[in-house]
C-alpha cells in the first residue's frame, strides 16, 4: 500500500515537474526558434527595447492564461502601438505564419519559462484549441 502511494505521489510530482518546467527537449526546441526568429527584437534577456519592442520577461501577457492571443500574435504579427504593463511599444511585430503547432507549443513553453518567467508549459493540443478560438 505504501509502495502504491509512493508511486502515485512520484507520478504526480513528475507530472507537476513537466507542467511547471516544461520538457527539456521542448525547451531546447523553443530556444532554437526563439534565437532565429525572436531574439533580434526581444533580446537575449527577453527584455525587449524600451518604447519599441515589447519585453517578454516578466510580461503579464506572456505568463498569462490567454494562450489564443499569444498564438495569434506569433502567427499573424501586428502593426499597431500596443500597451503592456503600463508602457507603450511602437514597432511592428513580424508574422510567423509557417510555424507548425508543435513549434508554436515549444516556443510558447520556452518564453513562458525563461528569464524570470515561470508559467505552465504549452501543449500541441492547447495550440490547436487556441487556433480554433480565433
Amino acid at each position: 500500500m505504501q509502495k502504491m502511494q509512493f508511486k502515485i505521489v512520484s507520478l504526480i510530482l513528475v507530472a507537476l515537474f513537466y507542467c511547471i518546467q516544461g520538457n527539456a527537449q521542448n525547451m531546447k526546441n523553443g530556444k532554437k526558434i526563439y534565437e532565429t526568429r525572436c531574439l533580434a527584437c526581444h533580446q537575449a534577456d527577453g527584455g525587449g527595447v524600451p518604447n519599441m519592442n515589447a519585453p517578454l520577461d516578466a510580461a503579464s501577457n506572456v505568463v498569462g492564461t490567454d494562450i489564443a492571443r499569444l498564438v495569434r500574435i506569433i502567427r499573424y504579427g501586428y502593426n499597431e502601438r500596443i500597451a503592456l504593463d503600463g508602457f507603450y511599444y511602437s514597432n511592428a511585430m513580424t508574422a510567423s505564419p509557417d510555424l507548425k503547432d508543435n513549434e508554436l507549443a515549444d516556443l510558447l513553453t520556452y518564453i513562458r519559462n525563461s528569464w524570470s518567467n515561470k508559467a505552465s508549459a504549452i501543449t500541441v493540443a492547447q495550440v490547436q484549441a487556441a487556433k480554433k478560438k480565433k
Partner: protein
Amino acid sequence: MYKLSNLLLACVLVFSVNAQENAGLRLPAGFSATLFADQIGTARHIAINDKGILYAKLNNANKAGQSIVRMEDANGDGIAEKISGWGKYGGTGIYVRGSQLYASSDDAVYLYQLDANGEVINPTSPKTIIQNLHSRRQHASKSITLDPKGNIYVNIGAYSNACQEKDRSVGSKGMMPCPILDSAGGIWKFDGSKENQSYAEGKRYATGLRNVIGLDWNNTTNSLFVTQHGRDQLNTFYPTMYTDAQNAELPAETMYEMKEGDDAGWPYVYYDPFQKKKILSPEYGGDGKLEGEKNALDPLVAFPAHMAPMALLFYKGNQFPAKYKEGAFIAFHGSWNRAPLPQEGYFVAFVPFKNGKPSGEWEIFANGFAGPDNNKSPRGAKARPCGLAEGPDGSLYVSDDSKGAIFKISFNK
C-alpha cells in the same frame, strides 16, 4: 598573498569611488561630471537658457504629471536644487532662445513664453506653431532646431523600417516610389513665429532620411546637420544574404549636412561603411553589392551600425580644450539590433571639425552610461544618452531617457 588581496581590494575601492565622483562616467583627462538631476522622468531632448536654467522634454509625463521639467542650480554646485515643471503631453523636441521656449509632442510644436527668471508664463496656453504632423507610432518623435533667421526645422521620421509593402515582414518588397516620402522620411521647414502651420504651410526641406533624432544648426557653415538612424534587420529578412555578424555592422549610422532639396537615399539605399558605398536595399533588388541612388548624399561621418544617434550638438564654448571648439558631440542611445552579437553605444561621441568639415576620426568622449557592470542590453542599461545641451559657461549636459538622469560634464584645466 594577504597583502595582494588587500591591494586588489583597495584598487577596486578607489576605482568605484572615482566612478562615483564622476557620476559613474568615464571621461578624458581633465574632465569631471556631476549628477545634475536624477529620476526626473523620461528625459528626451534638453535645452538651456543664457542663465544656465535647463529644460527637459519628457517622453511621458512624470509622476508629478509634468512633461517639461525646469532645473536650476542656483548655488553652482553642479546639482539642480530647484526642480519644477509643466505640460502634460509626451514628446522629444525642446529648444530655447531668449524668452521663447519651443517644445514638441509627436504631432505638434508649441511655443511658450518665459519671464526674466526663466519661469514659464503660459504653461497651459502655449501658441501652437505646427500641428497635425504624421505620428504613426514608429519614428514618431519630432526633433526640432532653429536657424538664426527664426525658421524651425522638424524631423518627420518614416513610419517604416525600409518602406516595404508590409513593414518588417519577410519577403515583402519595397514600394516604388516610396509613398511615405511625401509626408515623412525627411526634414520639414516652417516659420518659427507663425501659428497653426501644417504640411500646407511648411516645406519639405530635405528627404531620404529614415529617422533623424539628432539635428543642429551649424553657425560656421550656416547650414543644417543631421544624424540618421539606419535601417534594421537585414539578417532577419534576408538571412541568405546577410549573416548576424554582417547585420551587426550594417548599415552605418550616418551624419549629413543637409541643404535645401538634398536627398540621403532612404529607403532605396543604405550606407555600407566597409565598401564606402551606397548599397541598393534588398527590398529594392539589392544583393549587398549593387549600388544605387548615385545622386543621393554620401555621409560626412559613418558611425558603427545601430548605435542610435539621439542628439547632435556643435560645441561653441571656450571651457573645453581647443580641439573641441566647433566640433560635434553625438549622444548614442545604444543599440538593440546588433543582437545576438553584443550591443554597442550607450556613450557620447565627439567628431573634431575644422572650417565646418570633419577634421579627424570620431572618438568616444563620455562612456559608462550603461553602468559599472557594462550591461548593454537596452532594458538593463543604467542610463541611455538621449539629449545634449551646452551651458552658458561651456559645460556639456547629457540627458538619459530611461531613468531620467541629467549629467553635467565640465573641464577643470
